[in-house]
């Protein structure tokens, strides 16, 4: 059952990205271009998502199990450390370079865009590099 809900969540998420314009890299770049002709649309994407998310996560935080009886696994860390900031900086640069982040990349791939497949392949390599570095770091310490 949790697999059905995961697929459904991914599907609705993807349809939302398409409708919102987030799956269009040119629109994302238009939002990130504050000094040019700025398209504020994506602020409304975030606003709409958070408006729905706020009550849902308030409810989720109070529960120890999900509605399907699975353990509630929300992040517990509150640490604002070098990893969080440095990683977010690197992500922000990559996001700005192409106007693509992980969710829209998968939607682009599904839409049959070669650039989507190229981006996802490079992203997987990047994630693999992270795993490799982590593995070596953990073995060294």
């Amino acid at each position, binding site marked *: 059952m*949790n697999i059905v809900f*995961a697929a*459904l*969540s*991914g*599907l609705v*998420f993807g*349809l*939302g990205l398409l*409708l*919102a*314009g987030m799956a*269009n*890299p040119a629109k994302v*770049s238009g939002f990130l*271009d504050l000094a040019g*002709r700025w398209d*504020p649309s994506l602020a409304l*994407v*975030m606003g*709409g*998502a*958070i408006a729905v*998310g706020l009550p849902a*996560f308030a409810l989720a935080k109070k529960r120890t199990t*999900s*509605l399907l009886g699975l353990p*509630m696994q*929300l*992040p517990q*860390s*509150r640490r*604002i450390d070098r990893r969080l*900031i*440095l*990683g*977010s900086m690197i*992500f*922000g*640069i*990559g*996001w*700005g*370079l*192409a106007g*693509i*982040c*992980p*969710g829209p990349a*998968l*939607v682009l791939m599904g*839409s049959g865009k070669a650039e989507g497949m*190229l*981006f996802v392949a*490079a992203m*997987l*390599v*990047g*994630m693999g590099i*992270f795993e490799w570095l982590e593995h070596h770091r953990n073995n060294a310490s």
Partner: protein
Amino acid sequence: MTLDWQHFTPWTSLAGGILIGLAAAGFALFNGRIAGISGIVGGLLRPVSGQTSWRVAFVAGLVIAPLLWRSLAALPPIEITASSWLIVLAGLLVGIGTRYGAGCTSGHGVCGLSRLSGRSLAATLTFMAFGFATVFILRHVLA
């Protein structure tokens, strides 16, 4: 700053955002998890028993979304201006950065801000700032 009224899409963007919020809310309430795409994809690279099928299902849902859309209506416009090498560089940085920083626009941006997490707020402000700065340099300094 001048506003781009020609491309401004308040209602579809708001509606799309609400759908994204519903997906993240449903995933938290039913599956007990954060709909953080980079974390869901990244977790597939170091598989844990029993944690693979739901990840694959979520990713499949995202990939199938444009196929379902196209079976009902024409896909909205998708314009990609970045060159292939820039796409590769961007993908690499997004892959490393989202894993190192433990999240992206979905995990930190949508879910983290909805949970009122200070950690996610710091991450979101950081990647937004660097996204703005990168586009500024690309479009107004280098171009």
